[in-house]
């Protein structure tokens, strides 16, 4: 393929990425941008060109040793829920914008520590970026047909232009906000897209090589297994190899947390903590898929080319060898994706660190204080943009002058070892509050120096002098100082060896110096916030202990310089409202100091924020003891508040219970009123009838016909009876309801009682043409009050009779034994019970609308009294729902 075509493809691809990033920035809130899959795919920025090309090189040359680099992250993934979640919470709370900020804040906003972390990250990442450029350049060369052409100057080296394009991309999407703790949705979306591409293309070439070029995995295995030293490459060689594996796994375990690009995507770009839950299994799965075909491609390459000189690029060489340049282009694009995502995220992370932890705190603060606010924001952005370009250009020159000689794998490991020097202060500092800044600095510098001595120096010297004199005989010829065999430990691979010694010294000095020297109060304050993050998150701005004299106006002035008048005023208004302070508060307290530092942290880093704020306030020194005491008190306050909250909740519940009881009482009163009203109304009705009829009968002027006279007299009689019945019912009911009635309990024959009731209503039934059926003729003896049960049966049967149709009516009475009680059933074929009546039929005075007589004989007490009697016998009464026709009443009498 000619250069022109290849460059066109690259530019089109970059344009697509640009579009995706642009789109994601525009639709920041869309669920296409904010979901656990995008998050997981962004984590896959871990798989750079090293994974894409380097793994195969290692697999071809040293067998399965490429695996530990992926086992570390796989082991780390389940721990994310604990460790990473804590880191994410702390970072969000303090508006942290880089790992340098994270570590320096833990050790009391230590400016020097932040700068040191930045420098270590630069050392660790620059070679790594140059490694990516190397991959682009070499693959470009393989892809283009004029292989004889080798660039001699920067101007006609296409890699340089690719590097520049990436710098533009990173600068454009990385500096949309002055506040670096804001999310970079555009970059993340494009990284996620690239992660899909690189995986898919890698799998395609894997399948192509394994199943198209060869006859499946067994075919490759059979062919490779007869080559020499095959066994060596596929087994671990004794304890030494075991150690190597262990250290490599530990190394990559740390790297997945500490690499600036991983910190950027996993912590700073995390939208929701719950996304972690998906990532902890999806990310290992991604790594697994990526490593599926590595071994087979490596073997296939070995079989095809017979040498392993270009093993890293087997994925490109194999399809090209077989004339499939389309597939090779796909592979190239996949590798290019891996490069772009790594370079862009790394430079984004580094540029933030360089500007917020190196440049701004060491030289630009004075300028900022004098500058106009709007210019400050531009200034900060420009510092970052220049950092992005500088980093990429330095990486380019690093690549030109150094890494042409080195393999992808070895540069990658150098990076890992250097970055791992952050591990003790990062991990231990997260769980041990005694870790101090002095110890962190000493440990890091010591570890870094050892790593340089045992890994970087021998590499560089060998590359420059061409001899391995240094490696062979050690510094000044001292055998114990041989860089690859320090103090006689000669069985480890150089990276494992460097890692072992540097991290050992680092950890030891961190622990020893932490124990030996107490940190200052500010340090200890932040240490508590980190270690006990769950409690301190609740304390919010009160988590910072601060004493001294500060004026809101001064602080506001500082805020305005960086946030502008509008944002600063709005932030302060929010602060005052949140803590219920007057908007005219003059003196600033610890909370405002902490709040303002946080506000500035995103833009200029935590160290600078602290320096700026302390420049306008007079801080008093506080003793460590006092800090700890105050913190303890604040924590106790939280606990007390919690107790108070619980108590207040209890009180609320209690008062709502009281309210309930009260309203029940009120409704009881109301019920009583209604009861009396209804009683009065019921009594008045027959009295009215009697009074009216009597009045008419008494009128002597009237010559009333005899039959009417008789009718009136009959009416009076009827009404009098009704009155009497009503009064009896009311009294009965009251007695039953208040429990002032004793049952006359005796052993009785239920059959006999039923027959008595049937006899007493048989005349009425016959008159209406209703058939009475006594279904169960057996005798049954049990204990009950005969009079009362007689009343129950009478009520239920006359109710049934009332609702039965004339002539065709039928009432069935039946009983059976169910679970130590008698169930008596009275069923009719009348109108049935209306749905709306079910809940009320047993209420006193309730009379259904569904009656066919003009005015019912009943008093509205019947069923209410019936229910009382049955319950007095410890029985139950109910009306069956879902009857197809008619009503069915059931009541029970227990045997004991």
């Amino acid at each position, binding site marked *: 393929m000619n250069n022109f075509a290849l460059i066109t493809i690259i530019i089109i691809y970059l344009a697509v990425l640009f579009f995706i990033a642009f789109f994601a920035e525009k639709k920041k809130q869309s669920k296409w941008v904010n979901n656990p899959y995008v998050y997981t795919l962004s984590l896959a920025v871990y798989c750079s060109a090293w994974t894409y090309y380097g793994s195969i090189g290692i697999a071809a040359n040293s067998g399965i040793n490429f695996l530990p680099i992926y086992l570390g992250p796989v082991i780390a993934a389940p721990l994310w829920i604990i460790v990473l979640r804590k880191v994410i919470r702390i970072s969000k709370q303090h508006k942290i914008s880089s790992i340098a900020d994270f570590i320096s804040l833990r050790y009391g906003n230590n400016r020097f520590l932040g700068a040191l972390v930045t420098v270590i990250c630069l050392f660790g990442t620059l070679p790594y970026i140059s490694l990516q450029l190397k991959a682009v350049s070499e693959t470009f060369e393989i892809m283009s047909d004029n292989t004889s052409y080798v660039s001699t100057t920067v101007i006609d080296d296409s890699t340089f232009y690719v590097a520049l394009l990436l710098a533009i991309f990173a600068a454009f999407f990385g500096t949309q906000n002055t506040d670096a703790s804001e999310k970079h949705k555009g970059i993340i979306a494009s990284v996620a897209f690239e992660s899909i591409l690189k995986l898919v293309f890698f799998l395609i070439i894997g399948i192509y090589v394994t199943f198209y070029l060869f006859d499946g995995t067994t075919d490759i295995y059979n062919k490779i297994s007869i080559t020499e030293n095959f066994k060596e490459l596929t087994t671990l060689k004794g304890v030494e190899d075991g150690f190597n594996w262990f250290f490599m796994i530990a190394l990559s375990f740390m790297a997945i947390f500490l690499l600036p690009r991983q910190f950027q995507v996993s912590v700073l770009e995390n939208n929701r903590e719950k996304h972690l839950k998906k990532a902890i299994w999806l990310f290992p799965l991604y790594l697994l898929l990526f490593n599926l075909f590595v071994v087979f491609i490596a073997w296939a390459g070995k079989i095809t080319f017979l040498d392993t000189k270009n093993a890293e690029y087997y994925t490109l060489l194999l399809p090209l060898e077989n004339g499939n340049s389309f597939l090779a282009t796909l592979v190239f694009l996949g590798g290019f994706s891996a490069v772009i995502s790594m370079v862009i995220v790394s430079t984004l992370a580094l540029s933030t660190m360089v500007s917020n932890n190196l440049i701004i705190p060491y030289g630009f603060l004075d300028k900022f204080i004098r500058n106009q606010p709007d210019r400050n924001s531009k200034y900060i952005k420009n510092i970052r943009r220049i950092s992005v370009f500088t980093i990429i250009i330095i990486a380019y020159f690093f690549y030109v002058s150094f890494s042409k000689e080195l393999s992808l794998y070895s540069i990658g490991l150098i990076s890992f070892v250097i970055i791992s020097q952050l591990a003790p202060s990062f991990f231990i500092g997260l769980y041990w509050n005694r870790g101090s800044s002095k110890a962190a600095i000493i440990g890091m510098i010591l570890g870094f120096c050892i790593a340089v001595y045992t890994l970087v120096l021998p590499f560089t010297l060998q590359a420059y002098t061409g001899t391995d004199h240094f490696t062979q005989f050690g510094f000044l010829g001292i055998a114990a100082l041989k860089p690859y065999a320090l103090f006689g430990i000669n069985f480890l691979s150089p990276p494992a060896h460097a890692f072992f010694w540097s991290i050992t010294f680092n950890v030891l000095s961190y622990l020893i110096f932490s124990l030996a020297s107490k940190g200052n109060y500010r340090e200890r304050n932040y240490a508590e916030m980190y270690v006990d993050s769950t409690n301190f998150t609740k304390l919010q701005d009160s988590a910072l202990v601060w004493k001294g004299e500060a004026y809101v106006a001064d602080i506001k002035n500082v805020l305005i310089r960086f946030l502008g008048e509008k944002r600063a005023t709005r932030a302060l208004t929010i602060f005052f409202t949140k803590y219920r302070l007057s908007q005219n508060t003059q003196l600033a307290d610890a909370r405002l100091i902490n709040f303002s530092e946080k506000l500035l942290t995103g833009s200029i880093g935590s160290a600078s924020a602290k320096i700026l704020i302390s420049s306008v306030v007079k801080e008093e020194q506080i003793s460590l003891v006092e800090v700890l005491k105050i913190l303890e008190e604040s924590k106790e306050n939280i606990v007390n508040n919690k107790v108070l909250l619980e108590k207040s909740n209890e009180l609320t519940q209690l008062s709502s219970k009281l309210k309930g009881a009260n309203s029940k009482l009120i409704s009881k009163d109301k019920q009583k009123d209604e009861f009396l009203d209804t009683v009065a109304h019921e009594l008045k009705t027959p009295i009215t009838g009697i009074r009216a009829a009597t*009045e*008419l009968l008494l009128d002597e002027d009237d010559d009333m016909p005899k039959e009417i006279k008789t009718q009136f007299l009959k009416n009076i009689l009827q009404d009098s009876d009704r009155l009497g019945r009503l009064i009896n019912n009311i009294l009965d009911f009251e007695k039953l309801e208040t429990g002032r009635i004793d049952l006359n309990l005796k052993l009785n024959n239920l059959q006999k009682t039923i027959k008595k009731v049937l006899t007493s209503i048989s005349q009425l039934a016959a008159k209406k043409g209703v058939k009475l059926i006594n279904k169960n003729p057996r005798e049954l003896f049990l204990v009950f009050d005969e009079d009362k049960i007689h009343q129950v049966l009478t009520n239920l049967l006359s109710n049934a009779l009332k609702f039965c149709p004339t002539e065709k009516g039928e009432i069935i009475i039946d009983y059976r034994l169910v679970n130590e009680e008698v169930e008596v059933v009275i069923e009719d074929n009348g109108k049935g019970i209306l749905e709306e009546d079910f809940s009320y039929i047993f209420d006193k005075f309730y009379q259904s609308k569904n009656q066919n007589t003009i005015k019912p004989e009943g008093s509205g007490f019947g069923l209410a009294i019936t229910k009382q009697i049955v319950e007095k016998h410890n029985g139950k009464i109910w009306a069956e729902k879902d009857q197809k026709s008619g009503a069915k009443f059931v009541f029970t009498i227990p045997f004991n």
Partner: protein
Amino acid sequence: MKRKILIVDDEPNIVMSLEYAFKKQNFEVFIARDGSEVFEILKGEIPDAIILDVMMPNVDGYQTIKKIKETLNLTATKVVFLSAKNKASDIEKGLKLGADKYLTKPFSVKKIVSEILELLN
């Protein structure tokens, strides 16, 4: 022409007394046992007076008068409540709904008759 009166009550004994008394006064008497029957009768007749009970099954007295006032244009017909409910609030409610008088049970038949006659003259 005979004057017409409609008696609405669900208590047959009470209705019987009122019916007798008004027939004596030469009224043509119509009887309804609840609100719904009222409208059946009002389809064909325009009574001079209506005596209305409050507590009745199905459609009560309040609903009945409301419906009469809303749907029928019976400007000349006097409506009198006759109910056992004698609380001030009940009476007020009845009058507010447009009744001309609110009389309570138990009542004197003579008084009811004279009240009605007075209203109609």
